[in-house]
């Protein structure tokens, strides 16, 4: 028996196969549901609460990390853009605090391209790709009920939603919505000449209207 001469050889071969096997196990990128091998996973996934997960607490309660804020919570620096209790019919009183300028209208167009165009379409005719899939197509800005809609009501509709449209005040801040109003008014076709830019009416959060010099 010449066992001693090739026992090392055998051990060598076995260890090589084992190494290849381990390597095969660690590269799991072919399995889409697996993030792969994580060394010290708590460096990647902390024990702190992460959104959208459920946790079972020490007392056995199931805790959801995605929860509504405590009732009455407001964000820092938040001022309501629409006074409390205001209805759609009263929204005519809301006046655009941002004076018109082509630059502002341009900004409004950019926002329109991100937040409105897929339903209301490029020209505001309600023929966006999603709008066409709706059971009822959105109405055109330049006809019917919307042709002479006041800026306050446009703002109110964007903020609180109207009919099939959902509220967008959580997605866009007040300034962005007012810029959007300028662009929607262009699509309505109501703006032939820019309004006088020397003085603009401003609605303060309290709802009172005051005249203010436009800053240039």
């Amino acid at each position: 028996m010449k066992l001693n001469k090739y026992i090392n050889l055998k051990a060598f071969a076995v260890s090589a196969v084992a190494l290849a096997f381990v390597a095969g196990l660690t590269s799991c990128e072919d399995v889409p549901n697996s993030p792969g091998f994580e060394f010290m996973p708590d460096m990647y996934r902390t024990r702190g609460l992460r959104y959208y997960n459920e946790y079972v607490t020490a007392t056995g309660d199931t805790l959801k990390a995605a929860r509504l804020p405590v009732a009455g919570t407001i964000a820092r620096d938040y001022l309501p853009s629409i006074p409390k209790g205001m209805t759609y019919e009263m929204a005519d009183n809301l006046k655009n605090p941002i004076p018109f300028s082509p630059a502002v209208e341009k900004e409004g167009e950019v926002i329109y391209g991100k937040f409105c165009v897929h339903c209301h379409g490029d020209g505001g005719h309600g023929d966006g790709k999603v709008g066409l899939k709706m059971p009822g197509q959105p109405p055109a800005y330049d006809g019917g009920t919307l042709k002479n809609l006041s800026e306050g009501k446009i703002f109110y509709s964007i903020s609180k939603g109207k009919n099939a449209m959902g509220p967008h005040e959580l997605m866009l801040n007040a300034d962005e919505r007012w810029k959007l109003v300028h662009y929607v008014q262009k699509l309505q076709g109501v703006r032939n000449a820019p309004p006088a830019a020397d003085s603009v009416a401003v609605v303060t959060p309290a709802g009172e209207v005051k005249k203010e010099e436009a800053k240039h």
Partner: protein
Amino acid sequence: MIKDISRSALNLLMGLILAGFVFTPKASAADGKAIFKQNCAVCHSMTDQHLTGPGLAGVMDRVPPGKWLHDWIKNSEKMIKSGDQYATKILKENGGATMTVFEGTLTDADIDEVIAYLKKGDATTTTSSTTTGGTTGEQVVEAKGGIDPLYIILIIIVILAILIGILRGVRNSMSAVAEHTPDEELAKTFWQESRDWMASHRRFIGVCCIIIVLLGMRSCWNSLWMVGVYYDDASDKGYKPEQPIKFSHKLHAGDNGIACQYCHNSVEKSRHAGIPTVNVCMNCHKSIQTGPQYADKEISKIYAAAGFDAKTGTYDLSKQNPIQWIKVHNLPDHVYFNHSQHVVVGKQECATCHGNVKEMTVAEQKSPLTMGWCIDCHRKTDVAMEGNAYYDKLHAYLKNKYKDQHLKTFTVAQMGGLECAKCHY
């Protein structure tokens, strides 16, 4: 005489044609449909489906006869204030949601045309609700289930080993039967044979083993580089977990052309791009209740999360439940990354890091998100400084600092973008 009669007959005929031209009512069915589409279809379907307002199938049989519907369309609020019995009833049925007042927008004739259209019904609109989700079909590639090929190979090896064992047993018992004719070759076991063969081919076996070991070490080394990395450059495959709802980015961002920022709307204001809250889904899916591939199966999961009842169009806040989306792009907690800085100030496109999401049915990681990858981009990318108010001061400072090198552009690295504390603090 005859001439006069024929002339007056001709005049009469002309007059009749003219009168017909003036007094013929407008082609009411088509106009009624157009008015309905512009003013009513947003909230009312011609079927049973409840949108913002009730479905209008069979509405003429429901409402009180006479001028009631006409008055209601004209000024519904006045009707409610007057205490009309049916008006208060439908107000209650629809959760107190009032209908737009059309007085001033629609004339009496317009309203009559709409009512004529409602009476007639419309063959094309009654079937519309079945195709609301659109017809653009798209194939969602199912996450590959089944068995990993590695395990198949292992199973084959095990089966082969068992077969060899059985054959050996058969052979041994055969030779035991034929014991009276001892054969040197037969008596040798399998291992003894292979040892003898290996002993006589030692150089060949040695070289093979070295090659196998080197290959093994190489793949070990490579897989060590993949520890904690969710994307593989070589195979262009990344972490692609199955989500609780089969949401398709291809359908929403690709086919429907919804901008990334509509749903991930904190991307320009915050460190996080954010996973959209259910109210963002509901902005469209309140109306769009079936999808092209899974019909209402997946969309009903949104309703379950939002506590929304599709039949009545109302929300029940007590039934709300968060959707447990699985995060795909995960940075360790010891890294600070800010989306708004990259998207608004740096003017980077979403696709630069996230790949062509518009083609993905299931969201997949398309960048390694390693530190080397970050640094690489910070070294190569010229910052768009001109006309970028954020950089005005810094631009002037850097121009002065690098004035000997006559640099026209600056990379993130030259602005200190490689300092440890920029991202780790």
